[in-house]
């Protein structure tokens, strides 16, 4: 019979490697599961397309108005579709006790946060990649502007950074579907405002000096939200 101390097979690793390995494992798991079920992506995508279509029919757009509302419509679409994805992503973990399975692993719990956040970011970016050309066609607007793409990336990072944290909190309540947007939108407002301003600037061909303050704010909010989420995630998941 093995002695108690000889049983454990867990390898000794440096904390940084453990964090990277566990983060990568969670991202792989989320991608593999989503590739099979396509539940999260399809719901986000259908919702995003419906929002774009509704705005297209609701707003009587001439060429001038179109350029001024584009950034707003885009970010409303991304924010609503993102909320749907965040809810679904954490519900999968909670409903079958899988979140406990993750919390039982001998890894820094930040790895769970970063793994889930990177997975969510990839899904959101994928939806955005599909939505952008459709929007360009429907609204007859060229959205393939490198500056705009940078803003979309930075805005999505900030949105997912705080969204993943709040989704983890909301999923532990009975009213998770309602609670997430109520908590998320007020907190993520600075990111959305900066993103809309910077997007409008790039779409309107404004000089870089005019766009830079909004872009800088976006970067600062991203850093603050990621750092804050990193610090508090452990307390949120513990009873």
């Amino acid at each position: 019979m093995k002695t108690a101390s000889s049983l454990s097979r867990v390898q000794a690793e440096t904390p940084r490697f453990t964090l990277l390995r566990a983060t990568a494992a969670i991202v792989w798991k989320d991608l593999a599961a989503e590739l099979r079920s396509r539940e999260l992506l399809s719901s986000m995508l259908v919702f995003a397309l419906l929002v774009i279509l509704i705005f297209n029919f609701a707003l009587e757009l001439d060429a001038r108005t179109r350029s001024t509302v584009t950034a707003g419509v885009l970010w409303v679409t991304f924010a609503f579709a993102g909320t749907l994805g965040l809810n679904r992503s954490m519900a999968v973990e909670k409903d079958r006790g899988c979140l406990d399975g993750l919390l039982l692993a001998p890894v820094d719990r930040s790895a769970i946060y970063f793994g889930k956040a990177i997975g969510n970011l990839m899904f959101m970016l994928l939806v955005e990649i599909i939505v952008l050309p459709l929007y360009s066609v429907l609204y007859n607007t060229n959205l393939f502007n490198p500056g705009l793409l940078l803003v979309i990336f930075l805005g999505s990072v900030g949105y997912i950074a705080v969204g993943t944290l709040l989704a983890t909190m909301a999923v532990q309540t009975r009213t998770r579907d309602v609670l997430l947007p109520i908590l998320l939108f007020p907190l993520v407002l600075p990111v959305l405002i900066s993103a809309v301003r910077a997007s409008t600037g790039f779409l309107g061909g404004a000089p870089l000096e005019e766009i830079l303050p909004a872009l800088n704010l976006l970067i600062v909010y991203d850093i603050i939200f990621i750092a804050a989420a990193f610090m508090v995630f452990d307390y949120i998941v513990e009873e």
Partner: protein
Amino acid sequence: MSALEVTLKHEVHVVNDPEATKINPMIDVRKLVKRFGLKTVLRGLDFQVQPGEFVALLGPNGAGKTTFLRILASLSRPNLGQVTIAGHALPGQAAAVRRRLGVVSHLPLLYNDLTAEENLRFFGRMYAVPDLDRRITEVLELVGLAARRRDLVRTFSRGMQQRLAIGRAVLHDPDVMLFDEPHTGLDQDACQMLDGVLREVAARGRTVVMTSHDLARSADLASRFDVLSRGVIIASVQRKEIEPNDLLAFYRQATAGA
């Protein structure tokens, strides 16, 4: 044999008795208190388990069994008291405790959209299990699911999912196993298969704590029976001190005054 005779034959041991406490227990819990708001669930609970022991934790609904197991699993923080597992104190050394712990609850803790093998691969990566391919094969054979390794978990019956959940929990060869009502929702055949796996798990020298409502199954599996009621262990008996048929009477006697 009547319940009264059982009472006379088997004296109920209170675990707080210092003489009952041996040296270097694998699980050592002292004066544990857990509150949820104004409600106190665990009230100064003391509990020790020696290496290799299989303890069945019995008790009525709401006694605090699951809360207690969640604290042992480092999923919940106690308000007061000391918890030490394999020499590591909780919550300060939680990561070290988790390395030596395997947990099975009535929920499978598995991903429906991954195959059995992918689920084990994912958890193996989380635990940094060396030689993972070989270990996955070993574990799937242990729980009798080697032939279904490439099937999605969503296609598994409840019993198969529970066996795979045990596979997930033993993947990293933990020293201590915690089972929270593992038989919940299983039919008789599935329960029997699960018992076989539980015996196999315990036979490898692991320390096991299992909460259960099923006295008959507990009598078959455990080496000690503790009764938890209203947040404290009110009675404890070794298997060698009691006939399996008398366990129900022992349990009724212990919980009668609680």
